[in-house]
């Protein structure tokens, strides 16, 4: 059996590799293989997989990439993610990608899709317009059409067009992956000392850069390792982290939150991997099922219109209750309009419900954690006090 440390080391290796060695190795293993990148938050990876391509999450360069060229593309008041993505591309690190998908997360990612069209005319670029209308007849039909188009076009790029059977297989695989992720999140919620967020995050992050089959294997191995070496319970406050769905915080920040005395029991890091929160049916028409799966089960997030007028007000209470959390840490990237505008509504709702909150901003390359440590530490202590009183 592989040890917990062995799996975490493997994941850390993938996470830190800005050359995307695992993806390149997969490409080298078979002639004519192709890879397709996607930006946060949600991309239908089943469609990429069914088209015979490797789906690779492009989440920026974190704190390990020096930005030399990227700053020439972005003003100082735009978040950090696109400049590090451009840096990766301009330094040739993304030259193994034959296609790039840009989901409708925000105006920055939307405009980046056009920049890609200009800068890399040989790469297949698709802007993915997620359906904001949530009824099946209108939004569902629209999204189904988008997925069919994507299937056709990726099939052309890969030279291995998908059919219903291959798409159903891919959906089944991703159902397995989603199921494992749900289980890992459940385990962390139930006994957070057994699944430290730092480890869970690395595993999730590695899952964005390797074939889904490999992720499934490693996730299962990790779960077995957790059973074998459950770790020690500590006296910490339980928090959920909200706002980090796109540009990812540096790993150091995640560690800081936990070391300051908090157990993260729910979060929205790498949210795309669990945007569909239940299995997608593999019976009948798989494209329709995938489209329907999105409409019925997409989680509440800042990138989708909230049709329920009370939705934003109630969301933190619901999530806190579901995770049995003591409080909320709003952690959003600087200059991130969707997260920061949402924060005002979410925080007001949380505070009206008496839920303790703190808020800060970060950039993926933030290097100083002292201030976060103090803030999170004081927060954890105060929650314990309130909890005891």
């Amino acid at each position, binding site marked *: 059996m592989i040890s917990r440390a062995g799996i975490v080391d493997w994941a850390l290796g993938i996470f830190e590799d800005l050359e995307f060695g695992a993806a390149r190795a997969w490409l080298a293993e078979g002639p004519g293989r192709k890879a397709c990148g996607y930006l946060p938050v949600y991309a239908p990876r089943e469609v990429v997989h069914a088209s015979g391509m490797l789906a690779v999450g492009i989440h920026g360069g974190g704190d390990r990439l020096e930005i030399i060229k990227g700053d020439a593309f972005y*003003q100082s008041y*735009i978040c950090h993610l696109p400049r590090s993505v451009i840096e990766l591309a301009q330094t040739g690190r993304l030259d193994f990608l034959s296609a790039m998908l840009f989901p409708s997360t925000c*105006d920055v990612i939307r405009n980046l899709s056009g920049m890609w069209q200009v800068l890399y005319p040989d790469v297949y670029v698709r802007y993915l317009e997620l359906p904001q209308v949530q009824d099946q007849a209108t939004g569902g039909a629209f999204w189904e059409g988008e997925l069919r188009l994507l299937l056709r076009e990726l099939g052309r790029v890969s030279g291995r067009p998908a059919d219903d059977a291959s798409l159903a297989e891919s959906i089944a695989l991703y159902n397995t992956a989603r199921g494992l992720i749900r289980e890992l999140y459940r385990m962390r919620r139930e006994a957070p000392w057994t699944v430290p967020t730092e480890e869970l995050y690395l595993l999730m992050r590695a899952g964005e850069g390797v074939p889904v089959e490999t992720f499934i294997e490693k996730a299962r191995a990790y779960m077995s390792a957790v059973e074998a070496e459950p770790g020690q319970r500590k006296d910490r406050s339980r928090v959920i982290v909200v706002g980090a769905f796109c540009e990812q915080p540096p790993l150091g920040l995640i560690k800081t939150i936990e070391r300051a005395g908090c157990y993260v029991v729910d979060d929205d890091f790498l949210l795309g991997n669990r945007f569909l929160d239940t299995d997608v049916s593999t019976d009948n028409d798989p494209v329709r099922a995938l489209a329907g799966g999105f409409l019925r089960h997409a989680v509440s997030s800042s990138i989708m*219109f909230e049709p329920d007028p009370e939705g*934003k*007000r109630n969301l933190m209470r619901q999530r806190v209750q579901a995770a049995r959390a003591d409080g909320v840490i709003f952690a959003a990237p600087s200059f991130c309009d969707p997260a920061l505008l949402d924060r005002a509504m979410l925080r007001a709702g949380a505070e009206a419900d008496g839920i303790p909150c703190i808020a800060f901003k970060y950039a993926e390359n933030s290097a100083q954690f002292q201030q976060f440590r103090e803030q999170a530490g004081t927060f954890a202590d105060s929650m314990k006090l309130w909890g005891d009183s």
Partner: protein
Amino acid sequence: MATANKDRSMELQKQMIADHYKRLEAAPETGEPVVYTFVPGNLTELIRSFDALPLLPEINALQSGMRGKSGEFVVAAEKMGHSEDVCTYVKCDIGMAKSGNVGPTGTRLPKPDLLLLSYTGCYTFMKWFELLREEYKCPTVFLHVPYQGDGSLAPEHREYFVKQLKESVIPALEKVTGRKYDEERLRASLRLSAKSEDDLVAVLHSAKKKPSPIDAYFGAVYYVGPIFSAFRGTAEGSEYYRSLRAEVEERAAAGLGPVTPEGPLDDQKYRLVVEGPPNWTHFREFWKMFSDEKAVVVASTYTKVGGTYDFGFRHDPDDPLGTLADYCGGCYTNLNIPSRIDMLVKYIQEYEADGFLINSVKSCNSFSAGQLLMLREVEQRTGCPGAFIESDLVDPRYFSAANIRNRLESYLQMIDARRAERVR
């Protein structure tokens, strides 16, 4: 006389706006339904066909900026917990609502009966109305306008749009106004729109003349005001554009330039194209920097956020709902970056510009993300170096007059040097 005509169009516009705000103020008493909506992709004709009054929060924000009120509103919103990083239009609007909701003309603004959320070209709109919905507790109807990621509005996207109009937007308007959808009325209004659009395009195209009879950025933000806001498809809107066109044609025939706040600009030394919205808090000062240097703007992209009429689009009364899809889909910030670059290149070439300038505003990712690449590409394709300046829309803290003036002056000196080289 040119001056008399100019006065007439200006007077007309002033009167139209004053009347509209008075009607809005009286709406709670008169019972006229009020629909809040946004500029890019607005459905003014449809709203008006239900006898509802449109109110556009962005216009309030920019007007507050021009009248020196926005700074305090933005700070008020930040004190309430809004981040200093986010779009200042939103904060200005929320700050205004929390400070008594007195609009730019000094009248009290009514609460919305409906928030018509169409987020053409910008996702921040979605958050904006989610926030306002909390404030006003009124119904919200969502219209999802797909982005032209591939450079055109796909037929399926058009279909999706029309379906939403039929299934949610029109029923929502019927419900809040108590009136039935009247397609004939909509057609009549769209006919008036198309006529105004012809007139506006004639005005915009007049800048091809030398000297240009208009300033297509600072001056044109006034010209597009009625068509971008509450007056497209109305009789008074139509009359405004008829007289504006007559006035501009007269000025062009007389070989005169535009009238700037500092007086006429007949002697024009530089013809520029501008990308990006203006700064509103120092609008006159900003314009003066240009007119002091005898620089006239001959084309701008900002004046296309509410419709790209100069590339041929006209509202079509024969396809009343489909034409609304084409209109919304084609608004400037709903175009992808390659199309935006093409547009700038065309402007520089067709308007024989000496240079182009990007005003990048901190607030607006929809405009600003990608502008540095646009600068580079346009420079490469036209051989014309561009200038890049930074400011904000309605947050006065981000307007540095000295920096902007220096940048503009050195840019114009560079144009002089290039001219001198060509003469040699």
